[in-house]
């Protein structure tokens, strides 16, 4: 049983560490959003693994909160970034990107 604990949490924390590498390295805001959402899903998985292995039902409501928080955060950041887009002068269907000031604070490292 100890082996199962160690293996499961080694895998989960490896995934969490790699997601945090992506949060750190960026390069864009959306990469960080994707990585943060994955990190939240991995945290939810860790809580569920604890609940299952320890047979502890007390932590299960936390799962619902974490799942909903990940969704709300990703959607609100996506809407926020979408609102900053400038209408493109070209006609290839894509926006011109962010205003220069926002591009610096968001993407400059």
């Amino acid at each position, binding site marked *: 049983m100890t082996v*199962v604990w160690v293996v499961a949490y080694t895998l989960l924390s490896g*995934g969490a560490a790699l*997601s945090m590498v992506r949060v750190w390295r960026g390069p864009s805001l*959306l990469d960080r959003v994707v*990585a943060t959402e994955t990190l939240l*899903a991995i945290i939810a998985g860790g809580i569920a693994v604890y609940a299952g292995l320890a047979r502890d039902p007390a932590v299960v409501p936390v799962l619902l909160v974490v799942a909903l928080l990940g969704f709300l955060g990703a959607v609100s950041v996506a809407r926020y970034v979408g*609102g900053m887009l400038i*209408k493109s002068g070209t006609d290839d269907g894509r926006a011109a990107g962010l205003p220069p000031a926002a591009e610096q604070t968001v993407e400059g490292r």
Partner: protein
Amino acid sequence: MVREILDVVAIGFLLLGSVMALAAGVGLVRFPDVISRLHAGTKPQVAGVLLIMVGGAIRLAGTPVVWMLLLGGLLQMLTVPVSAHMISRIAYRRRHVREDLLVVHEAGFAGLADLQDDPPGDQPADAPRDQGDSG
């Protein structure tokens, strides 16, 4: 006897879900642009979490929280595609797509250009008509 078999099955589910979490991390680090990272990151968000939830539900069988676990899995299945779709749409508009890596580009830019003047139903209500969200 049945209990031991169920334990083995549940632990198998839990470990499989954990493997998917690790695969998500590897994919996030190694893939080249936002949309392919989204591909790597969202599959374990649905399938991995669902596997772990099923494993936990088997282990916790008989307690009232089983339904809450399955509700959590259902919520992930409902919400993750929505947020992934929104993020990938914004990533496409912000030119975060590595076009040199695309094999098929079905959302051709020529067709999209016609929609630019009147984007169907995606602008915030208070957006200025000429310089707001491009649709």
